[in-house]
């Protein structure tokens, strides 16, 4: 383990629960190649063991450690302190747009409920007794799905989206991006139901294309592009029905 150097980072961490809270300040020793998650973990292990936060894989795969870092939603396990520290200070808060359970841990229920509302579950027609569907990687629909498929459900896009904060009924970038990948899946049999779900109030037509989701997505996905694709699908379904 590398020896801590004499430099310390001043870290403001939001403490509280759904009823409210305030910032607590900590001085954390700086380490080489230190991530924001390392900083939060140091605080919990060495300064205040009652600090609550959420993480699992620590390698950017599980999507559970997202927090607001200096006002921007980030995956803390893959965010190096030296990339985001300002005047030797860090401010760490729970994700925007989600209710807080305690300290840095948010209640993700509404985020995943919206995936369900957007018909985010795959509904295939084949059984396991049938052959695997043959889908060419070059197919346009497969390529469109491919561009949207690497979502890790971290809710960073959801926290970055102002439309979510203005309209709590809005499905949000992640759920709509998921719907887009399924609308481009030729094996799925619920395209019509899903299109109705994502065209309803609070669906894709509520997006203002501010592209905060695309700016901060740690996997460099572009939910705005997916939502624009859904808008085109919704518009063409509307004109076909006339």
């Amino acid at each position, binding site marked *: 383990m590398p020896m801590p150097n004499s430099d310390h980072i001043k870290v403001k961490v939001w403490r509280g629960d759904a009823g409210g809270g305030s910032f607590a300040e900590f001085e954390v020793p700086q380490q080489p190649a230190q991530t924001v998650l390392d900083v939060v973990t140091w605080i919990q292990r060495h300064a205040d063991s009652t600090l609550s936060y959420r993480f699992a894989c620590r390698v950017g795969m599980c999507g559970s450690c997202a927090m*607001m870092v200096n006002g*921007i939603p980030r995956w803390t396990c893959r965010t190096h302190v030296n990339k985001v520290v300002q005047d030797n200070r860090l401010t760490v808060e729970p994700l925007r747009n989600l209710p807080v359970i305690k300290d840095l841990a948010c209640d993700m229920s509404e985020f995943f409920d919206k995936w369900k509302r957007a018909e985010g579950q795959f509904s295939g027609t084949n059984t396991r007794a049938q052959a695997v569907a043959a889908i060419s990687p070059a197919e346009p629909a497969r390529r469109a799905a491919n561009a949207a498929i690497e979502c890790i459900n971290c809710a960073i896009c959801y926290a*970055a989206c*102002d439309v979510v904060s203005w309209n709590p009924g809005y499905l949000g970038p992640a759920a709509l991006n998921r719907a887009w990948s399924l609308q481009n899946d030729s094996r799925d049999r619920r395209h019509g139901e899903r299109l109705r779900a994502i065209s309803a109030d609070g669906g894709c037509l509520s997006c203002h294309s*501010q*592209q*905060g989701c695309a700016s*901060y997505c740690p996997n460099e996905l*572009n939910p705005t592009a997916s939502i624009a694709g859904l808008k085109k699908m919704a*518009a063409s379904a509307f004109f076909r029905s006339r």
Partner: protein
Amino acid sequence: MKAHRRQPLYLAFLLHRLSGLGLALFLPLHFYVLGRALAGEAAFDEALSWTEGPLVKLAEFGLVFLLAVHFFGGLRLLALENMPWSNQHKNYAALAVAIAFFIACGFLLRAV
């Protein structure tokens, strides 16, 4: 401005909204001046002569900028929602501002 909003396409969104609001606020004045024509030629000419002042010309420069930036920003959004996806939207938003500024400057040069 909150940190997560400090990105070019949020600023483009803000500019589009504020320019639309500015144009909406201008409309009553526009209709009032046009409405003076109902009171006769002299009243309308009097209202028009008021627009010859340098401060009004400068305000018109702002107005032309708002109109142009709202128009080209709106074209960008129409393209975003109706044409194949492009990753160039930051450039398009900057281009909309540049063209609007160019048109507004052209208007000001003709006015002076």
